[in-house]
Structures are given as structure tokens and as C-alpha cells.
């Protein structure tokens, strides 16, 4: 009986752990040998990845930021390697360049709608006792060089879209 309860608890634990991997999450693999990541300083606390689409006139920037005492800081998850394998099996993890290629025909409005629809949520926080929100995305960057680690660092990314501005 005791063993049975332990097994049930273990199964619940595993299920809960995997439940944290929401279905609308996206894990993008960056190969620093081939992909340009703008890294300031030697730490990975702040970096960005850019993709430009000249034909459709937009720039898409992914940011990971962590500065002291900011409410807008991004998360850094350490996910077990097994979970990364599972994410890949489910199609939530893919090469960043292949993913970007899928966006080529979007105009900037469609681009915004695509990310909002599939990956966004509103994060609530308190500021001076007032409830505020801002938009976050379940989008993470994973470095290819980290994929074999026991716990793989996954960097939550913020999104910024910009374009040529005219007067």
C-alpha cells in the first residue's frame, strides 16, 4: 500500500512538472557559431537576437534582460534535459533560423497578431498597491551548446517590432 501511494505521488509529481510546459510555449535554439547574438559583457544576463525582413519592412528583436530591481526582468529557467527532449518531440522546440523563415511573408501587423495569438499572456504585478499588467511571451532561447547539459538554461525573451519610420 505504501509503495502504491509513493507511485501515485510520483506520477502526480511528474505530471505537474510537465504541466509547467504550457502548450503555447516556443523554445528557439540558437547556434552561436552561426547565429548572431548581441551580448553585452561576458554574462548572459542581457542579450538580444535580431531578425530583419527588408521585403516586408520590419525588424523583430528578441530580448533577454535582467537588471537589478526591474519589474520587467525576464525569467531564466533551468529545465531538465529530458524535458527539452519532450519539448522537441511535441514541436515546441526548433531551430531559430527555420522558425524565422516561416515569418517571411508576414507584414508587421500579421507578425504582431501571430505572436499575440500563439504565445502571449498578460503578467500582473503590483506597483504602489496598484495592480498593473504588461504583455509577456512564452518564448525562450536555448543555446545549442547547452542542450546536452543536465539542466538546460532557457532564457525568456521579450519582443519588440519596429520598421522604417517616415514623415
Amino acid at each position, binding site marked *: 500500500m505504501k509503495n502504491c501511494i509513493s507511485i501515485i505521488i510520483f506520477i502526480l509529481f511528474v505530471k505537474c512538472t510537465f504541466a509547467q510546459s504550457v502548450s503555447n510555449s516556443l523554445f528557439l535554439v540558437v547556434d552561436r557559431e552561426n547565429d548572431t547574438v548581441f551580448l553585452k559583457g561576458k554574462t548572459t544576463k542581457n542579450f538580444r537576437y535580431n531578425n530583419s525582413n527588408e521585403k516586408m519592412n520590419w525588424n523583430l528583436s528578441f530580448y533577454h534582460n535582467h*537588471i537589478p530591481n526591474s519589474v520587467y526582468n525576464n525569467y531564466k529557467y533551468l529545465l531538465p534535459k529530458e524535458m527539452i527532449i519532450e519539448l522537441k518531440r511535441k514541436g515546441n522546440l526548433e531551430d531559430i533560423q527555420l522558425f524565422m523563415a516561416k515569418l517571411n511573408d508576414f507584414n508587421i501587423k500579421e507578425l504582431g497578431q501571430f505572436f499575440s495569438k500563439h504565445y502571449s499572456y498578460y503578467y500582473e504585478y503590483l506597483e504602489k498597491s496598484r495592480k498593473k499588467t504588461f504583455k509577456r511571451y512564452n518564448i525562450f532561447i536555448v543555446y545549442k551548446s547547452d542542450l546536452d547539459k543536465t539542466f538546460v538554461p532557457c532564457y525568456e525573451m521579450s519582443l519588440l517590432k519596429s520598421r522604417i519610420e517616415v514623415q
Partner: protein
Amino acid sequence: MILSLTGCEKDDSFKEQAGDPQVNAIESGFNIEYVESSVLSKNANLAKQLSKLLTTPENLMGKGGRTELTLHTQIAKYISTEDGSYQSYTFHVSNTPDGVGLENILYASSDGGKSYRIYLLEYPYTEEKMINSFGLTGPFDFKGEHITYYPLNEEAKTNSVDCIMQIMTQCGEGNHNGGYYPDGSPCPAHEAHSSYLDCSISSSGGPSGGATGPYVPFNPSPFNGGGTGTGGGGNPSPGTEATSPMYLPMKSVIRKLAPYEDEAEEDHIKQCLSSNANMTIPLDMFLGENPTPEQEAFGKEAIKAKCENSDAEVEFEDRIINELVGKEKCLDEHLKESGNNFVQDLLANFEGDDSEFGINIKSKDQVFYTDENGNTLEVSGKTKFTPTNNIIEIEISTSKANNRRALQVVGTLLHEYIHADIFRKLNTQPPSNDDLIFRNTYNSFEDNNFEPTPAHETMASLYVNSMKEALKSYHMTVMTGDYNYLSNNGQLDLDNFYEALAWQGLKNHNVEAWQNMPQNQKDEIDQAYQQYIFATTHNCPN
């Protein structure tokens, strides 16, 4: 080449100084720096003599078989004594004959700049060998080599010196360090305490002032009509003169800007640098020893800009490449120099070694924009951020600028500079807390799904008042006559007019801040615009 005749105290510090004539030259009272043409032009006497040489290039010809030389006057190496009595300017020369080493034009004065002797100097090494051997600043050691001096004016005629340079290192007790007497014999341990560079005249010029053998102090006679020797001890001489090779360290820049996308890019950069040789020294100094990726990217962009447009002005410290022309250039210059500090403060965010972003602002005959629906529109200006090199490119339409009122063009310049600042704030790494708050504001407009761009929404809600104040200050201080006329010598309040100018390029995009403004206020602003704009001048003030 440096001449430094310095009496040194007997000290162990000689060991550290040995073999560093550049340091010795500075310590012996010579200041060495680079000066740009804007500074040179303030020296009327030098400018006059330079102009004479440039307009009579035959003075340069026929010297040692030279048939085609180009004198580069945009930057010079300036060496002077503390009291300014001695001063020399060394200029780079290109198009030298095959097989000839680096050549310079030297202007040297010993009377505080009242008169200059002019020489064409030929060093024993090519520019490439100079860079390999001595780097950008030396020290330079031409021991045993010939340096040829061709006098180019009356004052310099008396002695053509064809000399052999030697670095005379310190003769201090316990420190031989390759030190020599002027006769070439090594320093004895007990001997005197001198630290200087010297050269001998191989053709004429016997010993003078006590110098032994064929050696006399460097280049004495043009100043002193006979020379003042230093003798074996090497005490400072009133005939002391210093110069130092001036070359354009292209190879150094090429090395620092590597790697290149491909061979074609490297070749293109080399070609551009060759045709814009005067930018190599300021560029090399800007890059420093370990340039950041952002410095490298800006350096490459600057080189390419100069290649396409030799009139492009590059301010390395400010990280701005300016290719504006005509009316918009004139108005832009006033904007940066006069009025309130809005633009200066904004552009200051791009300055400094830590700056990540550069601006390239340029004139184009016409500026077009194609929207997402494929419609092409002619616009007054546009701003584009290129993430791969962190350059923010601003294009200003010359045809639009020429047809518009001066204040409208100033409004466009402000508008585009603000776009540049918004791009900077959005992309700065790592961001400050304020940058993150700014990004959230920017993104909140994206979420509202309004038709205007988030940048225009952000500008409308955060910048309109600053633009209004900047335009007002510009009108009052730069276009004073126009302002006095329009305001009846300050009797009329034109604030609504300046606000209307600030809203141009925003309200037509239906930004939220304009939509939310009470109708009567919008009417007042529109009315002020129609009332005054056609009474303002088209012209840029002198």
C-alpha cells in the same frame, strides 16, 4: 624622426626610458599631437604657406625624380616646445615614386611660427614597414639609415641634410643599453647623462659645437646658420629640432576591422581607405587597441560612406556620419549649435566609447517609402535601424527641403532624430530601468492595435512638448529676424504655431494623443499653423 637632446640625471629610471625616444621627446619638452585642418587653418601664416605650396605643386616636383605627389593637409602631426618657440607640422605625402620610402612635408619654425622652413622628407622605410616596425606612434629608430631632406623654400635652402639617424640612448652608470657617443662609440659606465636622438650629415657638416667625428646635432643649420653642437656630453642645444614621421596607418586599421564578410569586403575597405587616406589616423585612434564590435561596425560604415561620398563628414567621437548637403545641412548645423539643448542632449546619448549606436544622416534627391500594401510614397524623411551594424540611417529629402519653409525642415530633422533616439532606447543593451519602462510604453501602443506605428504614438505622447520648445528656441535664436517679424518683436504668442509644427508628421497618422485632444485645442493649433507658416522664410539663416 625625433631629435631630443636632453640632459638627464644619473638615475636608474634611465633603464625604463631607454629606447623610448617618444617618451624622451615629450619629457624633454616636446609636445606631440595630431591636429586637424580646422585647427591648421587658424594658423594664418602656415595656411598661407601651405596654400602657396598647394597652388604651386611644381615646388614639389623634380625633387629626387618625383613627378606626381599628393600632399594631405587634412591632418598633421604637430610637435612643439612648451613655450611655443619651436613648432613643426608634418604632413603625409602620397603618390611617391615606386621604391621610395615614406615621404612627408615638414614645416618647421623656430620663431614661434613667424617663418617656416619647408622640406620634403624621405624616410628609409615604406609606410608598411614603418607600421610593422614602429606602430602608430613609434618610437622610431632609423639608426644607420638615410633620411633625405629636400629644401622647398628659401629659408630651408642653406643646408640640404642627408643624414644618418641614430638613437642616442642614455649613458648612465650601470646602464649601457646600447647608448652611444656621437662618434658611435659605446657609453662608458661612468660617463655623462644624456638622452637624445641625433643624426649625422653624411655629405657636409663637420663637427660643430664640440661634437666629435662627422656628427653634428640634427638639422642644425637651417635654424642657426651653422649649427650648435652638443659635444660628447649631449647637453640640450638651442638648435634642437624635433620632428616625427607622419604616416597613415592603413594596415593597422585593416587589421582592427577584421574579420570581413568576405574578400570582396576587405578589398573594398582597403580601396576606400586608400582614396580617403586622411581618415585613417582619426579612425585608428577611434578604434584604439581593442575596438568593440560597435566601434568596428561604425568604422566600416564610416569608410564606406567616405568611399561613396568624399564630402561625408565623420565625427568618430560623436558616432555621426553626416552626408547632408545644402539647405538641410545648414539648418542641421544650427540645430546642433544653437537654440536649446534638446538635440545636443539627444545626440549626446550616441557619444563615447560605450555607445552602441551610430547615426548616418544623409541628403537624397528624393526619399521614397513603400508600405506593406506595396504603395510607394514620397516622404520628407525616413529613419531606418539596421541591427546587424547598429547604424541608424536617416535620409532627408533635398527636393522636399528646398520647397518647404525652413522651420518645417527643422521639424523634419527633429522628427527623424527622435526616431533615432527611440531606436536607441529600444535596442540598448543592457537597458536601464528607464529603457525598460520606455519599451513597455512602446509595446503598449502595439497592443492597442492602432494604425499608427508605436514609434509615432510614443513620439506623440512623450516628445511633442520637447519638440515644440526646441522649435521655439530655434526660431528665436537662429532665425531671429523671422521670429521678430512673425511675433511682432515678441508681442505675439506663437506657442500654438510651434506646437502645430511639432505635430506635423504625427497628427496625420491619427496618433492616439492627437485623437484624444479636445477639438477646440486641435482647431487652435491647426489655425495657428495656417496663419503663420506661409509667412516664415524658406531660407537657412547665415
